[in-house]
């Protein structure tokens, strides 16, 4: 029996280059930078080596009510904002849903780091009595998934894939499985992150993962450029409504694309360094394509992981070359972290939103800051203007995400 087909019927996002999907897409095609100097007092107070980041263009406090923001960590706030947009976009009606067939898979890389560290400060400065009772539900990494399930009345399970910077894409993988297996008809998948806090900034700095281009933040995230020196911390969330095809057709839903295949592998090589030959990533790419019955010549676009670190960008090229062979010369590659920085556990979800829009609109978003392409990474990168994808026929976009711990997640998104 053929597995159930799974389609994407709703999109939501709140990112450094747009507080909703229409703004995100418009800017992604234009090519803008979301990075800027941080104006927080703690930057000077702690003399941080990195003084900029890519803050969300619209803070959730501008969108949610005060009691909502008070009871949710910023990571959960981002999740709820993006999920509400995706839900509204899907046209699904809560009251008409079989709640037990509605599930959530919402990822995060780090979880409620603001809540955790604020509570620790409170404990030290004011004592245990002042540590508020909502602290635990706010700091737990399943907070975003739980809040989204409460918001939607989703009773079919709320999952929290945690695989560092692969988390958001792994959530897509989980959602696909839930629908194919018949456990759910609709799954709200996504990823959220809010870690622009001095401690994670200091910690990522000390491992030399972050760009130190403090004098020119907008130029700092430059995947594939010879002068790349690390990633730029971003924040926000992406959300997608995954739906069984027959469920979507029965209600006459607009279908952006099919989530055709997915795969998750692990390098088992090193806790932070990617396998230099990209072997784990290659296996993930090949498995996702096999899962979706996809041939290399079907693939026309890749939203690459491409964080702009000196060591990370090249093994992904090696993996793409192994998986796609000569077809890679025909594939438009977008490195959208050049625009919005690295949203860690949210990045895979936001980039999946962009892939769905890319196959739906047959346009691939722009990579900025690629002034001098690394000769060891001869990819066909979209720069300057958005790339026109083939106007006719079925096309496939791949979204790659890799995380500390050797996590590799790939999804294949096909036009319908």
């Amino acid at each position, binding site marked *: 029996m053929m597995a159930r087909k799974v389609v994407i019927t709703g999109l939501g996002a709140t990112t450094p280059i747009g507080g909703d999907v229409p703004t995100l897409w418009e800017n992604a095609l234009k090519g803008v930078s979301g990075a800027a100097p941080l104006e927080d007092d703690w930057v000077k107070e702690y003399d941080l080596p990195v003084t900029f980041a890519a803050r969300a263009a619209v803070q959730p406090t501008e969108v949610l*009510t*005060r*009691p909502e923001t*008070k009871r949710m960590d910023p990571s959960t706030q981002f999740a709820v904002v993006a999920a509400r947009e995706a839900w509204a976009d899907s046209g699904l009606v809560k009251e008409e849903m079989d709640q037990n067939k509605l599930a959530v898979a919402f990822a995060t890389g780090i979880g409620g780091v603001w809540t955790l560290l604020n509570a620790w400060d409170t404990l030290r400065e*004011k004592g245990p*009595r*002042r540590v*508020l*009772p*909502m602290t635990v539900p706010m700091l737990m990494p399943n907070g975003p998934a739980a809040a989204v399930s409460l918001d939607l009345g989703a009773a079919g399970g709320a999952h929290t894939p945690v695989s560092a910077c692969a988390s958001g894409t792994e959530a897509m993988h989980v959602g696909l499985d839930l629908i194919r297996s018949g456990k759910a008809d609709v799954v709200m998948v996504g990823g959220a992150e809010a870690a622009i806090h001095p401690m994670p900034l200091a910690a990522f700095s000390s491992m030399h993962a972050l760009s130190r281009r403090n004098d020119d933040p907008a130029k700092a995230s430059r995947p594939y450029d010879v002068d790349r020196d690390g990633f730029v911390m971003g924040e926000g969330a992406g959300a997608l409504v995954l739906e069984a095809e027959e469920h979507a057709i029965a209600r006459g839903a607009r279908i952006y694309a099919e989530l055709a295949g997915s795969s998750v592998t692990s390098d088992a090589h090193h806790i932070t360094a990617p396998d230099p030959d990209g072997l784990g990533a290659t296996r993930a790419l090949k498995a996702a394509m096999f899962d979706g019955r996809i041939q290399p010549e079907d693939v026309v676009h890749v939203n690459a992981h491409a964080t702009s670190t000196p060591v990370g960008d090249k093994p992904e090229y090696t993996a793409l070359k192994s998986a796609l062979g000569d077809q890679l010369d025909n594939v438009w590659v977008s490195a959208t972290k050049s625009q919005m920085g690295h949203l860690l556990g949210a990045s895979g979800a936001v980039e999946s939103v962009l892939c769905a829009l890319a196959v739906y609109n047959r346009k691939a978003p722009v990579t900025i800051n690629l002034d001098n392409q690394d000769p060891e990474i001869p990819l066909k990168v979209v720069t300057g203007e958005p790339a026109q994808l083939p106007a006719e026929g079925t096309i496939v976009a791949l979204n790659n995400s890799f995380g500390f711990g050797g996590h590799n997640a790939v999804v294949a998104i096909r036009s319908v």
Partner: protein
Amino acid sequence: MASNEEILAGLAEIVNSETGLDEADVQLDKSFTEDLDIDSISMMTIVVEAEEKFEVKIPDEEVKNLKTVGDAVNFIAAAQA
């Protein structure tokens, strides 16, 4: 030291920030659980924030006796004295 009116206004502000309820709805005769629909976690948050705002101690075993907003105002007023 705050007057009873000031304590009521301060409590109303805390309740509004925690629950979104209109400050005008926070009246002396209102029950926290039955009228204002405040759950135990919110109640503890309100207690901790009231302790900080009015510089008093509200022991945990006392919280169950604070059934109405008036009970809380009276307790805080007495504790300040």
